[in-house]
């Protein structure tokens, strides 16, 4: 049996850490590369991915992340108390960014532009925008529209919804 091809995905990005934002971006970009229609809906702390003054300050959490190992992915588990040292999160983030650059994974700002230029659509969640007291001018120009959850479902009709 030949399974039906995926033609449309709507990806929800709800977390504001580096590892919360990137997977959704990679999936959306990958969808466009395959000719699949892609929407991204940023909600809660995920919204920081499209806030122009903050999107390039996204970091990895070094506390509350029991899988975190140093200095490499196969190294020692990072004790919570060390993860809490000031600068630890920034350091871990810069290490990971170097690895990502080597794999041609762009910084968040550039990635958002790339997805938008590739025909992907980016939206912000209305409830979060209101809760965080934000306005359209706080967002990067690639953010097309602030959507209610109802608008989101309407836009996602006929495709798959992926929550990250």
């Amino acid at each position, binding site marked *: 049996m030949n399974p039906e091809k995926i033609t449309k995905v709507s990806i929800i990005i709800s977390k504001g850490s580096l590892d919360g934002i990137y997977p959704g971006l990679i999936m959306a*970009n990958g969808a466009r590369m395959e000719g699949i229609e892609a929407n991204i809906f940023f909600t809660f702390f995920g919204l920081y991915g499209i806030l122009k003054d903050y999107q390039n300050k996204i970091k990895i959490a070094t506390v509350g992340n029991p899988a975190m190992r140093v200095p490499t992915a196969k190294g020692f588990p990072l004790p919570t108390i060390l993860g809490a040292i000031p600068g630890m999160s920034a350091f871990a983030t810069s290490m990971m960014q170097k690895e990502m650059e080597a794999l041609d994974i762009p910084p968040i700002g550039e990635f958002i532009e790339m997805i938008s230029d590739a025909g992907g659509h980016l939206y912000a969640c209305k409830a979060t925008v209101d809760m965080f007291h934000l306005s359209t001018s706080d967002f990067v120009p690639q953010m097309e529209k602030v959507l209610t959850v109802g608008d989101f479902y309407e836009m996602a009709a006929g495709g798959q919804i992926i929550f990250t």
Partner: protein
Amino acid sequence: MTTRTINQKEIEFDDEGFMTNHLDWDLEIAQAIAVDDGVPELTDRHIVVLEFMRQEFAEKGTGPSIRRLTKESGVPTKELYALFPNGPAKKAARIAGIKKPVGCI
């Protein structure tokens, strides 16, 4: 594996439609693959992309990521998607006569 005769040459393709030997490639073959892949006419801009991909493949054994392609070939993302609609990465690789790209970006 399938074989097609294009321009009196026997060209071999893998199961996903990528040429198995990039050295067999020429522009007429590219044009024939392009037509099958929904790109009726290869323009100079298509050829800029194809040449860049082939050069990368010859040097590194794999095609470039879309990011490198757009940054270094001088063909921006929007144009690339317009030139090779419905999935530029695989489509451009197929027309360029190189193997299926392996990266995620």
